[in-house]
């Protein structure tokens, strides 16, 4: 019996020790919870920045970091957290297109009510970016954090073989190069080398890699939706559908899904794709020996002049309204997206901070000199668009995607008819 009592004392003593040793973190008066995405690079960045903040700012909020819990998608997890009122104080991977829904549900904190925010945001971003992130009620519920502009990746080896000194800039150049490259390599009577590839399934976000960047490029960054009305029934959208339709009609692109095969770009089965800077990490890891590639702007209509826009896939930072101290959260966010930490973001994650003068700022010059492919994206970052502010954005892209499939891939509708039908269907969303 004495033995048991002795061991019990030891266990109680150990438990007491463990519990009291946790006290420093748990007892902190201003503890804030921060969720990042669960991408390993972003976790590394978040750990770096949180540790630095907690070390340098012991008198301010203590930030507890955790990656967004595992789930089918981070979006679903955030949704579940909102419903269950278990949202973090700060979340750093909010897709810009989702913000309006959460803003209208009243679960986000408006940054523009904070002292000094407006000056800060104009210091960081161009005025068109500030306009883009404004919600329909005029408030700003998000801070532009990072972008991954969609550009054309091309196989330099193939281009040299085809005698192309420059990547195709216009629709005509792209079509001409496509005709040069298309071939039936195995002689079975079917084309098996295509100039480009884009996912053919109708899932709404697939159009971020074909229709949408092409539309932004052709139109100089025009919106799809304005004042609860579809504004894409125009020459640009019809032109994009016509151009992309030719790619499928002439077998320059395949109607087959190639996603289950080995990377068709790295295997040189396709010569171009439309993708973001994440492709660099992937290509450097898996490319065959001697494989050379580079990036260029999205092809534009013949005779096009002016800056070539593209989709930027923006991911932003939000504060949820469950946050006990938005002022402290804001101070941490300012620290997290400081110029120095934006450089860290670039170095660790190969993603671009959404800030002006990125390609010319002296702080980033060394990075871009060492990573010339990223410099191309940095230059493009001046001309990126996110998404329009509307709570029905996914439905809008879904409707466009349905018409895209009917017209571009299967040719059962003319471009004019398809765009008109998509615009009419989108307008019905706002009536409902």
């Amino acid at each position, binding site marked *: 019996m004495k033995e048991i009592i002795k061991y019990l004392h030891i266990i109680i003593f150990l438990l007491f020790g463990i519990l009291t040793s946790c006290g420093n973190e748990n007892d902190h008066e201003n503890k804030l919870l921060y969720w990042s995405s669960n991408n390993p690079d972003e976790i590394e960045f978040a750990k770096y920045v949180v540790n630095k903040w907690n070390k340098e700012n012991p008198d301010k909020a203590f930030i507890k970091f955790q990656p967004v819990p595992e789930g089918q998608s981070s979006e*679903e997890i955030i*949704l579940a957290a*909102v*419903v269950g009122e278990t949202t973090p104080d700060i979340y750093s991977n909010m897709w810009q297109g989702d913000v309006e*829904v*959460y803003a*209208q*549900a009243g*679960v986000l904190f408006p940054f523009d009510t904070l002292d000094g925010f407006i000056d800060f945001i104009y210091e960081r971003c161009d005025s068109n970016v500030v306009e883009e992130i404004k919600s329909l009620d005029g408030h700003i519920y998000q801070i532009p954090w990072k972008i991954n502009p969609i550009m054309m990746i091309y196989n330099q080896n193939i281009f040299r073989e085809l005698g192309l000194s420059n990547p195709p800039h216009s629709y005509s150049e792209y079509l001409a190069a496509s005709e040069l490259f298309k071939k039936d390599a195995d002689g*079975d*009577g*079917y084309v*098996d080398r295509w100039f480009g590839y884009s996912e*053919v*399934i*109708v*899932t*709404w976000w697939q159009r971020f890699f074909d229709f949408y960047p092409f539309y932004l490029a052709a139109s100089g960054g025009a919106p799809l939706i304005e004042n609860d009305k579809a504004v894409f029934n125009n020459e640009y959208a019809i032109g994009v559908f016509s151009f992309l339709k030719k790619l499928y009609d002439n077998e320059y692109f*395949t*109607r*087959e*899904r*190639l996603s*289950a*095969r080995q990377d068709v770009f790295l295997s040189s089965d396709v010569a171009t794709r439309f993708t973001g800077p994440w492709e660099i990490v992937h290509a450097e890891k898996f490319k065959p020996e001697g494989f050379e590639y580079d990036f260029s702007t999205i092809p534009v209509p013949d005779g096009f002049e002016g800056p070539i826009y593209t989709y930027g896939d923006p991911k932003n930072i939000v504060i949820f309204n469950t946050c006990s101290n938005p002022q402290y959260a804001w101070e941490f966010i300012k620290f997290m997206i400081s110029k120095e930490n934006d450089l860290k973001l670039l170095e660790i994650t190969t993603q671009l901070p959404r800030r002006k003068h990125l390609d010319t700022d002296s702080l980033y010059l060394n990075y871009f000199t060492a990573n010339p492919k990223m410099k191309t994206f940095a230059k493009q970052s001046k001309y990126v668009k996110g998404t329009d502010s509307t709570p029905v954005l*996914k*439905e809008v892209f*879904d409707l466009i995607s*349905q018409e895209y*499939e*009917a017209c571009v*891939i*299967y040719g*059962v509708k003319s471009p004019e008819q398809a765009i008109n039908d998509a615009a009419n269907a989108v307008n019905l969303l706002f009536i409902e």
Partner: protein
Amino acid sequence: MNKKAVPYLLVSPYIIHFLIFIAFPVIFSIVLTFHKWNIISPMEYTGFANYIRLFQDALFLKSILNTLIFLVIHIPLQIIVALFLAEVLNQKIHLRGFFRAAFFLPVVVSGVVVTILWQQLYGFDTGLLNKILVTLGFGKVGWLIDPKIAMPSIALMATWKNVGLYIVLFLVGLQTVPKHYYEAADLEGATHWQKFFKITLPMINPTIFLVVILSTIGGFSLFIEPYVLTGGGPLNSTLSAVLYIYKQAFFYYHMGYSATLGLFFALIILSVVIIQKKFIEREV
């Protein structure tokens, strides 16, 4: 303890499970059909708006039609193949145990894995099936990219995936047929086909009924295959009703509308099963 309370106590786990996981979701879904709700905003009462929208929704009607096309191909194919293989595996053949296990294997493999495997087989350019066709001098088939063929392709794949389960059911059915019926038929000089049609089929009718019901309900819930393989395309030709309901709920958060679609679709399944039951019971 009060003796009268014991039975209630014993059934309480099921009752609690039923109330939480069956009764509440069903009642909540019915309530949802009269509301507009995107999960994060408060519910908004909309009366019968979701029901009116349902009957105007051409894509939902198309998804039901697609599901029926799938069933029309899948159920007979499933029964014929499963019955044929069960008949073969009921004979004393070499490696019978191995073949029984091999045919059952796809049933226990994840649907996503099976789908990805078939994606390789169905590939237009590099797919194994088209390679064989070209080698034999035929043209390539757009298994998943031709809107007319995509749904039959999915039905074929679903049959391959599920046939093992129905083979087992038919094997059980076949083994319950008394042997003396066959012995008597042999004495009368009946052929193999006569024995099959006059003895086997009538005797395993309850099993056929079970297989029809199970494959009908399973077929109506077609989801993983089009979700992974085609996303509902090409041209919505493989958009099943469940995939459409899922998209409404979890792509666009139209919870009220998707609940309405779900309820309507559940009623269709119930009606079909009742009709099947009456029809097949009469046959039995």
